[in-house]
């Protein structure tokens, strides 16, 4: 992921008007372990978009997560959008379809595959969400908070 080149040199630009939904993009809804056949195989969080409208999933530039200070391996991440699941690295590729929209205000479920899931209780989660828009530099939004996982 780190090898892909940036389309715009100033992609880390950030202004106050860029951050309109920054405090709200990391939701506390539906955060829990994922189970399969009685075993915890991963966990998930639900994100909402950091922009004033929905965007094609192909316009997501980066989703990075840290849980209790530990970075989440992007290869273990899957996103659920419009009733379909995508391996996170695939949405960053130039072959990603452009007609799958992350709707405005809709949850984007991010599942992290991890044997043993996450222990029930409060965990500290940090998110960096970057999205490309029409007419301004890539919006880089960061937020962190304590979240209760079921």
């Amino acid at each position: 992921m780190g090898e892909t080149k940036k389309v715009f040199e100033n992609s880390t630009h950030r202004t106050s008007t860029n951050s309109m939904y920054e405090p709200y993009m990391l939701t506390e809804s539906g955060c829990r372990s994922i189970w399969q056949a009685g075993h915890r195989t991963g966990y998930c969080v639900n994100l909402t978009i950091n922009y004033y409208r929905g965007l094609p999933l192909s316009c997501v530039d980066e989703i990075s997560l840290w849980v209790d200070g530990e970075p989440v391996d992007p290869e273990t991440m899957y996103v659920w959008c419009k009733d379909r699941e995508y391996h996170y690295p695939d949405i960053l590729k130039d072959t990603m379809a452009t007609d799958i929209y992350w709707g405005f205000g809709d949850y984007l479920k991010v599942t992290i595959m991890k044997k043993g899931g996450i222990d029930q209780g409060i965990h500290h989660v940090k998110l960096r969400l970057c999205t490309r828009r029409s007419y301004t530099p890539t919006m880089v939004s960061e937020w962190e908070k304590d979240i209760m996982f079921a």
Partner: protein
Amino acid sequence: MKTDHDIKLGVSLYSYQDNYYFHRFDTEGCIAAAADAGAEGFEIFSDAMIPEWPYVTDRWIDTFNGWKYRYNIESVCLDHFSDRAMWHDRQLTDDELYERGVLYIKTAARLGCKAIRVLHDNHMGARVSNKFPPYRLTDAKMCGRLLPAAAEHNILLALECHAPGSVADPCQQEYLEIADKMGLGEFIGLQADFSSYEYRLSMADIQGQVRNEGCTEEVLLALREAQTKAYKEERALDLEEVMPELEKIGLSEADRKFLSFHGRRSGPYDAKDTSHSYETLKQFASSIKYVHGKFYYIDEDGEVDNMDYHKILGALKEGGYKGYICSEFEGNRRMNDAGWCNEIEYVRKHHILMRKCLGYPEPVFD
């Protein structure tokens, strides 16, 4: 609510974005809120409030038309976007961007809209578009390509002229000239945005800058006071004349950064640059096709706190503007970090103000 006014009042549903984002109101709820504010029409973002976008079914359109009938309100405009940076390492080609433009035109027609707000290269005038050279949006040539599709579907391409630019920016003329040469001039036109006529800082901006960017409240309030005084004297404020006073209060780095961008706007009474004057707006009024009634905050007197709506609407009326002014509330993004921002109440007050400015009666719902 139908009227026979030349200037009709509507709401861009963008104004209710927090209500939608946080699931307090769905698309129907936002349309109902607009109707209840007294709006005759509304503008919609397909990218935000049409969940099926980009493949909108006839079934959804039928439901949408049902809402328009139920709430006695018409669809006026659909917002077009130029998402060229579609992938990490590749951008849309001109042909691909054209295809998306046609999709917006066709969808607008199916929704019963009369126009699309085009996200064109010069939507913030020449000055700002030059500042971001990598961002190639829909330029004049692309508008020329889109015009036959616009004509086929009877859709107007509305060129939004946003601050720091205005409808008087010469860079807008290229778009109109191309259309005239094609004989399709009636399908493209200028769209004013009231952000061009701000004469001082809004309290929504001041509070947001203080909370989020570390600006000094006293500094920004002093600037606003100087801007107010200059406006009352019908002249532009030269930032240099107020800088000693601001320096005396003490400027932080955040203050200097803010002033370097926002402190240089001169307002409607700049004798050197009359492109933002009420007289210029009046001269352009009869050729303007659509208007965004931008606002951020309404004060205790019911006035937009950084624009002179009486003068702006007066210029449009005297100049013979015929068409919609749709409320475009943008205070939400400036204030929602401090708690719930009551968009519905702001839009309601905005319509009361616009009706007052235009001498319209208050609506009566039976």
